[in-house]
């Protein structure tokens, strides 16, 4: 996470390269899994998909299984990476917060002209809820898919109960994945959400949009002080000058200020701003 305001370009960094790669790895491999999963049903021959240019392979279950496998390597590795990478870094911005469900309903009402949407953090409350839903669907698809793959390779006579569980969990969550995917695309196409589309392609969103709709996020990134060109060379609370003042008064070192690890950009700005008087 390297959220940062770029004032000179009027943009805010919303996703870093790692997050973009994760998203697109899961999205594109997921799309391929979805399509090849449909071909495994079997649907391609019946619905003449095999007659479409470039899709004659779609009726070949072995070929589509191979592609399904290949896509799932990317899908699984990216999902596990996502979990561990952000888990270790303590980045939990997409984890739902208390009251998200209630606020989500208010936001959805506001889309239909009823009421006003509240100020947002980086993510909308329904984005956080949708994230957990999608993560659960993906986890179930991966777990059941791994059981099915193991059966295909090593245990064709695996317990029928386990096979049926894995198969039907895979099938049910496959349907839910399609619905969740459709809802995801539908949500991003809603007019108020459209400015976020840029973010998932370029990594940045417009600053004016973010200030207007995500003021709580901007507040987290911006220092309490006015913009830099207006900053007067005054000691800021917690700065080195302040520390010196406290030391002079008490004869002791002041306690260290709390470190906000996830907010790198403000720290960088803060680092430059406190200047000692000569």
């Amino acid at each position, binding site marked *: 996470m390297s959220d940062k305001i770029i004032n000179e370009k009027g943009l805010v960094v919303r996703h870093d390269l790692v997050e973009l790669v994760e998203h697109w790895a899961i999205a594109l491999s997921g799309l391929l899994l979805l399509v090849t999963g449909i071909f495994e049903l*079997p649907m391609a021959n019946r619905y003449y998909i095999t007659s479409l240019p470039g899709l004659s392979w779609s009726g070949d*279950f072995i070929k589509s299984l191979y592609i399904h496998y290949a896509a799932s390597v990317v899908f699984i590795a990216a999902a596990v990476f996502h979990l*561990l*990478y952000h888990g270790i870094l303590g980045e939990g911005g997409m984890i739902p917060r208390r009251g998200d469900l209630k606020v989500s309903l208010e936001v959805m009402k506001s889309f239909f002209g009823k009421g006003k949407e509240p100020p947002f953090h980086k993510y909308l409350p329904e984005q956080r809820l949708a994230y957990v839903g999608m993560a659960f669907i993906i986890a179930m698809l991966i777990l059941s898919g791994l059981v099915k793959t193991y059966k295909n390779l090593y245990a064709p006579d695996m317990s029928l109960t386990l096979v049926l569980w894995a198969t039907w969990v895979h099938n049910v969550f496959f349907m839910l994945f399609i619905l969740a995917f459709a809802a995801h695309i539908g949500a991003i196409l809603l007019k108020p959400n459209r400015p976020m589309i840029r973010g998932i392609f370029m990594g940045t969103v417009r600053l004016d949009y973010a200030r207007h709709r995500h003021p709580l996020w901007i507040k987290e990134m911006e220092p309490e002080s006015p913009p830099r060109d207006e900053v007067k060379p005054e000691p800021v609370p917690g700065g080195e000058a302040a520390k010196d003042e406290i030391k002079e008064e008490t004869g002791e070192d002041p306690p260290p200020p709390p470190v906000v690890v996830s907010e790198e950009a403000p720290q*960088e700005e803060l*680092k430059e701003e406190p200047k000692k008087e000569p």
Partner: protein
Amino acid sequence: MSADKKAGLNRRAFLKVSTGVAAAGAGIALPGKGFAAGPKRLATLIDLSRCDGCPGKDMPACVGACKTINRDKIPKIHEPIPEPWPRKTIEDWSKKREVFNRLTPYNFIYVHQAEIEEGGQKRTVFVPRRCMHCDNPACATICPFSANHKYENGAVVIDQDLCFGGAKCKAVCPWEIPQRQSGVGIYLHILPSLAGNGVMYKCDLCNDRLEAGKLPGCIEACPQQAMLIGDRKEIYAQAEERAKAMKGFIYGKKENGGTATLYVSPVSFAALNGTMKKQPGRPDMGPAARRMAETDKMGKVVLQAPLYGIAAGVAGAFMALSRRKDRLKGGEGSHE
């Protein structure tokens, strides 16, 4: 006692010998209670030197027994059969149930008559054909609803209550054994014209009978004792022994990655295959590679994928933490 019986070729004798020799649990083909109980892997042997096609009978005894056992298996067909959309394929054998010279949803075994000319001599070989009950059957492993399953005893069985009749199992079977009956099955209760098209039917090795301690109908009915069932290892050993004794050939050991059905023949399977023209309901006996093997390597990579994710996630996070630490240090340094 004939030489055959001495060699343990008689079906009952074979079973008895198996019982005695392998009573310690090496795998026993025992007619009676507990025959197929437990995780015993079974295999069948079809000795073509013994099958005579049951001359003088309306149909071979194995076929007749199978038809009798499965006579009421398929429920009443829905009339009219819903027309599938957009491809309008309907397969209805309900008015041709008597057909026994090919595989149909109402006929799980048939006997091919091969006229062979070898060394200037003509010879007739009868070849009973049914599902081979493969060791790793693609028909079962990639059934999208797990309606087709391979049991521990080796029987590959379609659950007609779960099958949608998409015929995927037939498409991936090298012998295209499963046969479809439209107008029956679970699809009728969901979206009959948009998804599904009936139920696939094939030999299930009389799995219900096996579980009840009985022999499969075809094996029990064969007057020539041309078919055997028993512990897989013993059947495999028997097949080798018989093939060696008759200087013959084995089919089913390596085909489609190995099967639980071994044919032993005094004439080559290439010659037999030459008499067979692969057509609907009439499989050939050519070489049959296991096509699923093409996906095995990638499947193994799939099983390793979580490890790739763990390695990359942990490494990436520690690199990011290290960068973050460096930045903080750099920040502190700039104040000095």
